[in-house]
């Protein structure tokens, strides 16, 4: 919980001398420190938000960044987070409120102006907190917890753009927008959400940049600022392009991707292709597995080591890719194949600028 106010740091001598009068004075008329804040044009900003995602995605860092930015603007901030199981891929949720003066830290349903979903399903899960007319920025990244991976049916996930997201949800392909650095450090991709949020929140960009530089790891400041700028300009264009539809997303249940195709990603002129899955964005392409049948001796090693259960032995004891769509391209089977019979490659869309070395 962060308290950002000068009420406790520099009380005026009169207030300390007369504590009973202090409460009356503050309720009747603003304290000197507060009156100076009211001259601050940003001092009237207020808002509530929920940040939700999976452990390790930088949710706490992002809420720190927002808090820092609000504090720089002279606002009161309170935040509270639940992060108990984060290390095991569990949910992390942070309530954040800011304004001239914040009393309670927790939000009730339909109180949040904004929701930042760092993971697709976690973001949608907290939609009940969204005010009517609020905006939920939800990353289309999906993370399947390891325990659910053990016997899950689906393999490589195609995120839920096949169905229309609820009203007020802005699906953001954070990996595609963030820039190249996000492929190495996944948490950088989520700074795109802060960029999009900054358009709505009304704080100056300089304050945001200062807050990002102060809260993210020093090595990643530059990449985070790039992601922030990309997210900000992407969301501005998204708002322009969807202005006629009254805040509703134009993605339709029939799979129409008109809006996405018409909105190029702002980073480096790279186009955002809605048909790409998150794993594609992560690894830079669609993984393909190929097995040389004549070389395979059926030792079962690849079947045993594959974490996604892509492979199996056929009736001739030859390995086959029975679920090729699940392949994530980790290459474990190929490296541990004693017969050198397995080959993995990525089909990289040309617009991602693949190099064949």
């Amino acid at each position: 919980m962060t308290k950002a106010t000068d009420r406790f740091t520099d009380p005026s001598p009169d207030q300390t001398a007369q504590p009973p009068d202090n409460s009356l004075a503050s309720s009747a008329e603003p304290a000197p420190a507060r009156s100076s804040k009211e001259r601050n044009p940003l001092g009237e900003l207020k808002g509530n938000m929920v940040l939700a995602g999976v452990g390790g995605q930088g949710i706490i860092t992002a809420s720190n960044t927002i808090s820092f930015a609000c504090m720089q603007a002279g606002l009161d901030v309170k935040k509270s987070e639940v992060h108990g199981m984060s290390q095991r891929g569990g949910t992390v949720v942070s309530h954040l409120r800011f304004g001239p003066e914040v009393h309670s830290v927790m939000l009730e349903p339909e109180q949040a102006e904004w929701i930042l979903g760092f993971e697709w399903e976690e973001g949608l899960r907290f939609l009940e907190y969204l005010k009517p007319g609020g905006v939920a920025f939800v990353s289309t990244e999906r993370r399947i917890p390891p325990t659910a991976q053990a016997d899950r049916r689906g393999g490589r996930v195609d995120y839920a753009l096949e169905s229309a997201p609820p009203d007020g949800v802005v699906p953001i392909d954070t990996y595609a927008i963030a820039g190249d650095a996000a492929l190495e450090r996944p948490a950088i991709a989520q700074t795109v959400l802060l960029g999009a949020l900054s358009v709505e929140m009304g704080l100056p960009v300089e304050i945001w940049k200062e807050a990002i530089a102060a809260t993210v790891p020093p090595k990643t400041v530059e990449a985070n600022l790039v992601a922030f700028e990309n997210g900000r300009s992407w969301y501005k264009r998204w708002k322009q392009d969807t202005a006629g539809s009254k805040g509703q997303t134009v993605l339709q249940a029939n799979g129409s991707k008109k809006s996405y195709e018409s909105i190029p990603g702002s980073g480096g002129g790279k186009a955002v292709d809605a048909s790409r899955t998150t794993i594609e964005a992560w690894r830079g392409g669609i993984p393909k597995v190929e097995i040389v049948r004549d070389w395979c001796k059926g030792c079962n090693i690849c079947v045993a080591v594959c974490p996604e259960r892509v492979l199996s032995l056929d009736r001739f004891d030859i390995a086959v890719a029975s679920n090729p769509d699940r392949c994530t391209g980790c290459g474990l089977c190929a490296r541990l194949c004693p017969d050198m019979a397995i080959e993995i490659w990525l089909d990289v869309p040309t617009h991602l600028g693949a190099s064949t070395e």
Partner: protein
Amino acid sequence: MSTAITDAATVTRVPVTGKEKRLLRHAMMPHMLCPGCGHGIILDAMLSVLSERYDNLDNVAFVAGIGCSSRIIGYIDACTLHTTHGRPLSFATGLKLARPELTVIVITGDGDGLSIGGNHLIHAARRNIDLTCVLLNNEIYGMTGGQAAPTTVLGAYTTTTPQGNTQHSFDAAELAKAAGATFVARAQSYRPQVFGEVFGQALDHVGFSFIEVMSDCTEYFGRTNRFGGGADMLMSQARYEPSIDADLARRPTVEPIADAQPVRPVLPTGLLYRSSRLTLEETMGIKGARSSEVNETGQYSTDQGRDA
């Protein structure tokens, strides 16, 4: 769903694995190793490292003796020399002195390098000749029918020890270090990337580089000791592993257990020892050899060695 991506014109194919296959003699494949044999994994890892370094292997010579491990050089498209039992290091010494510009890699097995050729191993290490020796240790004589090898651990069953092995085994890495090797490492077929890392360092090292690789013989060692199939055996390498930074001096001992069921030996892996010493080429004054004194990285000083 994604017609645009599968369109060949808009897709670039980027290999994740498989770049090493161009270094194979494709006419010889598939190889003769048994299903699940760990030697094939090491062959793959070795070629992966070499494929990143060389366009072709015309200046790389593989020398091997007799045994399952030594047979893998027959599938490498390089200068290969298949020699007599136990003597690959002797042939390789002559080859290296005659053609010092070659990168010489010796592939040997635990029987070939420690039993028949044990003397050649310690003398090659003593001379500190600039070559890389990879000893594939599958803890048994696989090719000749599963007899007990000098590396078979105490209590293990083989065709010649049906009541369990009553002899202690060699620690090949410690042997090579004591004999004077200036680079000693150990890897597992379970972790081919660790092997690739130390193999790359061994190629860079000037002097006698020795890598012991714990491999799996599924047909004899695995079957007689009931370790299961190739996949089970591979997994069993991870079961009792110590930390990679474990020291040779702090090597945990394998306790013989009560019901005489053998266990996989617990061994430290990774780079175990590295030091710098004049090589045989330098002491003989051979032109064209790499020098151990002047090296570009300068990291092979004696105080860098773990136990120096």
